[in-house]
């Protein structure tokens, strides 16, 4: 049980709103750790601080024992953190394959290579195609990304996260906006990833969370009010109160 990601005393406020309030969080290598919490609890802000998109006001983020609190987002990606976005974030003008190939390319040394056509580099293309096949999008590879459905975009996000070979995948509501069938496919797929990757999952779909998570942390108003095994969380009074109090 080695700790992959360790967060201590993380704080972030926007104006008067405290989005992250003294968060401590440990993610163990190989686990699927879910973060749940009511709307506005600061889940996405937390992910953004971990990926480097947002700078924390205070606190320390350690990855594999190294302090990455002040590392920019692109460096953290190189160190092994990738994220998917709650609101689909893809390059709409590029083909599906190009989007994924770009993630593979990032793992293949620097890209200050100017003359050789990128689309003719076999090992990058092949790997990108394999990732697309894995999420079931192989047939859409050459289509412009904007022509795909929302569900397919979510699958692309996942293919990109996979292609990056990151040790730690931060998945921000991968099920957002999916229909029941698509959700079930996504859950099955995430299940198949368990043990292979370390995943920090934000999700609103409680059935999915309890089906997938090894451990769960509950975030309310920027504070972690509980962390534990799914069964402990289900029976935790504070958690019940937070959720029932909200609804």
């Amino acid at each position, binding site marked *: 049980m080695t700790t992959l990601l360790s967060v201590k005393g993380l704080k972030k406020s926007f104006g008067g709103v405290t989005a992250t309030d003294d968060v401590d969080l440990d993610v163990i290598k190989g686990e699927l750790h879910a973060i749940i919490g009511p709307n506005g609890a600061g889940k996405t802000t937390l992910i953004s601080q971990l990926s480097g998109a947002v700078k924390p006001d205070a606190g320390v983020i350690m990855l594999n024992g190294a302090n990455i609190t002040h590392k920019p987002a*692109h*460096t953290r990606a190189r160190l092994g953190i990738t*994220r998917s976005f709650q609101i689909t974030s893809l390059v709409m003008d590029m083909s599906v394959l*190009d*989007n994924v*190939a770009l993630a593979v390319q990032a*793992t293949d040394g620097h890209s*200050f290579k100017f*003359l050789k*056509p990128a689309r003719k580099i076999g090992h990058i293309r092949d790997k990108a195609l394999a990732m697309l096949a894995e999420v079931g999008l192989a047939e859409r590879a050459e289509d412009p990304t904007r022509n795909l459905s929302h569900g397919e975009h979510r699958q692309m996000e996942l293919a990109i996260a996979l292609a990056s070979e990151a040790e730690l995948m931060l998945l921000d509501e991968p099920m957002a906006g999916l229909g029941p069938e698509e959700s079930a496919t996504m859950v099955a797929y995430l299940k198949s990833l368990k043990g292979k990757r370390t995943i920090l999952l934000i999700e609103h779909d409680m059935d999915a969370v309890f089906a997938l998570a090894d451990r769960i942390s509950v975030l309310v108003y920027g504070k972690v009010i509980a962390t534990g095994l799914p069964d402990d969380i289900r029976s935790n009074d504070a958690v019940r109160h937070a959720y029932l109090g909200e609804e």
Partner: protein
Amino acid sequence: MIGFSRSARINIGVMAILAILPVFFWWTGQTFYLSLATRLVILAIAAVSLNLILGYGGLISFGHAAYIGIGAYAVGIPAHHALYGGMDFIASNNGFFQIALAVVAAAVFALITGAICLRTKGVYFIMITMAFAQMVYYFFVSIEEYGGDDGLVIDTRSEFPLVNLDQPIVLFLVSYVVLVLAMWLVNAIVNSRFGMVLQSAKGNNDRTVTLGYNTYLYRLTAYVISGAMCGLAGALLGNFATFISPEMMDWSRSGELMFMVILGGTATALGPVLGAAVFVVVAQFLSELTIYWHLPFGLMLIAVVLFARGGLSGILRGKGS
């Protein structure tokens, strides 16, 4: 021409016309049209260079004329000192030296200003690139040695072994070859790994950074390449006009370059060339008809932007809407 896609055939066709027609003008002694074609080709090089960052990089530089000016003065200043003395270390009519000076000076200027400009986004980027270009403009206005805002006459064109730029057809052919090389280079760059990152950063910067790319450095590199290429266009323009002045880098000149790229079609190989061609030719003929030629010209741009997404090259490829 089986084996070429429709767009490749159009590219080859247009570039062939652009090569053959001026030679025909030269053959029949129509020097006016030959010189119009030469100016067109040189401006097309500048537009191709701008397209690299504007079209493929999404960086709306409103200061690209500065590089034309820097390139032109990199020819004019050494030539001036070669004739009148002073500044011995740069006094020279050697074409290789002048071209190298133009490219290096433009690249250095792009590196320094780009490092600052690229920290900003959107409308701020547009304003700051324009501000830097105006700085260069006023810098040359203030130097009396080189004529201030009256400009500077280049008495001797860049000298190369075997190639005499004093002959209009030679200057045209040299410019044409440079244009083809510039188009080839930009095409290679945008399809390379580097180009994929550049285009991805344009489409979605956050995503690209999340993948592990320091998009700032990629953009800065493209900015420097584009500036250097435009500096080369400036060196050719100095040789073509044999007269240079700060007016060459006025902000309205930067606007014209943007106009060409957008009119022709951003992020396409042929777009900037088509845009430059239509700009130069239409401006010429409209200005012969009326001194108010800017009005129909402006309306034309509005019509192209509104009705032909993808510009003129989009219309040619049959994807006008």
